[in-house]
């Protein structure tokens, strides 16, 4: 129940011989004054609040080698999953703000969880300094191929004629995909039944594929293959412009729902109190890293857009707007865990 050894266990100093490179380096940070000038002079831990294999881990692992090279120090990715990402976020928020512990936040942990879990100790907007966004994954409205509507207009007509009869799935009651659908549903004035799943997008997608539930929002990365393979059909993407991977799928905006612009994003944050020069240095490094063509290509293959924020302030403004949007939706539909 403590922060990871790297950040806390100064006492191990005497055991450098035993400790591995990571541990050993984490301890010398006991001298904060010197730390800023020659930052980074030891490995940096990037806490990912989800298990390996997920979207956040994917972004972190792609970023890691390039960022390590630019900073001249090893970035150590540490997966601390649990409680919808809250366990890892809590750990990162309480880490020493010396730039050696960073947090890979995403739309769920930073913009949604604070409004769903009322007893969450972390207040992301106060407890973290945003550095830069790194990955952006648009939402995709998918449906079973046998579901009659083929676009959003037909969908609206179809559901309006059958209030309360159409079911939509989601990867969880507090997931961004559920909120995307709720926002769209309210904007269009549709009455649909929410069927939540757990364990990622897989089980919910399987039931849409099997025809047990009609439609859902997923991230492009989890839906794109099924759409290309013809097991699912796409009714719209939640971007302003069409995405290159699915050029035939119209945007929600095109189809008359300009408010349905949203995405799942991942970004790097540092614990509040991290010195500004360190934030700037990290920001410059991340911007540089995200220009890397292999990162762009790898992310692009999965429908993820490699991006970075022009300044840390831009990322902060982005998160604030994102959080305001989702907290509004959450308040409207009354998902709250009390």
């Amino acid at each position, binding site marked *: 129940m403590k922060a990871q050894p790297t950040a806390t266990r100064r006492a191990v100093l005497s055991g450098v011989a035993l400790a591995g490179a990571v541990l050993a380096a984490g301890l010398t940070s006991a001298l904060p004054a010197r730390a800023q000038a020659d930052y980074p002079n030891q490995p940096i831990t990037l806490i990912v609040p989800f298990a*390996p*294999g997920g979207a956040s881990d994917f972004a972190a692992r792609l970023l890691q080698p390039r960022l390590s090279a630019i900073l001249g120090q090893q970035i150590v990715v540490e997966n601390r999953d649990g409680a919808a990402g809250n366990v890892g976020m*809590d750990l990162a928020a309480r880490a020493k703000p010396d730039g050696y512990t960073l947090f890979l936040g995403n739309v769920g942990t930073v913009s949604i969880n604070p409004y769903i879990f009322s*007893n969450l100790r972390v207040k992301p907007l106060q407890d973290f300094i945003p550095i830069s966004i790194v990955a952006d994954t648009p939402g995709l409205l998918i449906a079973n191929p046998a579901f009659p509507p083929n676009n959003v207009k037909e969908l609206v007509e179809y559901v309006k004629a059958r209030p309360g009869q159409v079911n939509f799935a989601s990867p*969880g009651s507090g997931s961004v995909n559920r909120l995307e659908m709720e926002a769209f549903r309210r904007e269009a004035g549709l009455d649909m039944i929410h069927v939540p799943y757990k364990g990622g997008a897989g*089980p919910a997608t*399987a039931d849409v594929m099997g025809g*047990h539930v009609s439609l859902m929002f997923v991230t492009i990365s989890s839906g794109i293959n099924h759409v290309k393979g013809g097991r699912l059909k796409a009714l719209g993407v939640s971007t302003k412009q069409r995405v290159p991977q699915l050029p035939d799928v119209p945007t929600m905006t095109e189809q008359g729902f300009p408010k349905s612009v949203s995405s799942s994003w991942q970004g790097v944050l540092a614990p509040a109190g991290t010195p500004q020069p360190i934030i700037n240095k990290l920001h410059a490094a991340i911007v540089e890293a995200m220009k890397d063509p292999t990162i762009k290509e790898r992310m692009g293959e999965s429908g993820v857009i490699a991006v970075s924020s022009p300044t840390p302030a831009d990322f902060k403004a982005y998160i604030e707007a994102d959080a305001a949007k989702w907290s509004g939706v959450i308040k409207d539909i009354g*998902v709250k865990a009390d």
Partner: protein
Amino acid sequence: MELFNDLLLGFSVALTPMNLAYGFLGVLLGTIIGVLPGLGPVATISILLPVTFALPAPAALIMLAGIYYGAQYGGSTTAILVNLPGESSSVVTAIDGYQMARKGQAGLALATAALCSFIAGTLATIVIAVAAPALAEVALDFGPADYFSLMLFGLVAAVILAHGSIVKAIGMILVGILLGTIGIDANTSVERFTFGIPSFGDGIDFAVIAMGMFGIGETISNLGGSEQGRTFVKEVKNLWPRWADIKRFIKPALRGTALGGCLGLLPGGGPVLASFSTYALEKKLSKTPGEFGKGAIEGVAGPEAANNAAAQTAFIPMLTLGLPSSAVMALMIGALMMQGLSPGPQLMNQRPDLFWGLIASMWLGNLMLVILNLPLVGIWVKLLSVPYRMLYPAIMLFCCIGVYSIHNNALDVVLAAIFGGFGFLAKKLHCEPAPLLLGFILGPMIEETLRRALLISHGDPTVFVTRPISLSFLVLTFLLLIVLVAPMIRVTRQRAFEESTD
């Protein structure tokens, strides 16, 4: 002949020295972590996933798959030798396997487990090669209502596991289900029974309860018992299966393979459900059901074959549709994505080398495991001749490390101690731990699918009888109940006697 060419391609990939080496490394690591209590394949694959990014895709996948089924083999070893089911799928193996070990048949039990797993692995691999895409379609047909009825069937079958009082067994199942509700409710995000502790949000880990109730609880009662309870194993006899043994276990192994192969296709508790429904089936088919729970070889052979077959067929939805049926499969998909590959229907056409290479490596992996495990049987059995006063402190230490390393969370160790106390209490009260664990695994799935089915049907409960798959399982459940209750009524008068023999 296409299949033949495909398999040829597969073996040409899997038999390259590098892939063979990674495959062997995988099964070896898997066996080690499977033998060590608490450490599971999910944790190990998570740790090793980043390492595999540097490998070519087939090598990475072959190694990760090796860890997965290696852990299935290894898990049964600890279950048989010291009654510690490290993996959820070896809970059932522990019941009769451990009793066999105490009768001095540890070698026979281990060899049976290895051979039956191999038979099942071989047959399941053939099934994957021949019919994977078609079987994936069947899995998609299963809706929430169907899953609910299947789970209900599984739960009723769990009662058969008990060899004591049925009322107590049902009670333990309910306690297990209740424990399974701990955590954040998936439908409403309400935190249930978490006492405000964040790490309870995802519920208690299976290994914490298993280590507590089996490992710690069992040791307490061994130490407290008479000298006889402490003499661990009487005398080691027949290390290897004889012809008569093979004749006894071959049919259960084949039935287990069939049942496990089918259940493995379904997401969630495939291997677990497979192992104990096979146990229930064998107990019901047996002419001597009284032997079950006291060291029946069929009680090891069937479930071992079933969980291994299920572990193999669990790859089908992942490989053919890109849909993970378990946490391990989700990790595999993550590994593929990091390689720049997208799992799904296209994989088989885009990268036939990967697809068929993995399938060929599955069979090779099983072969390596049986070659690795059979000689180990002798060593494991020797381990049992270590005096118990040396053995139990080691078991305790391994339990503690295993539990701690699940989440690097000391609270889990404290919880395991509590479950240890509870396990001891339960044993004193003649309540068995296996039904509790199965309730714990199936309970959350039952709740989830029940609520989901009723949401989809808009509250109409007839959905459970109008869907043919669901209806068939409900009918089976009903028949099972009759089978269960009928002898119970007959022997009510003898019950007190039966319980005292346990």
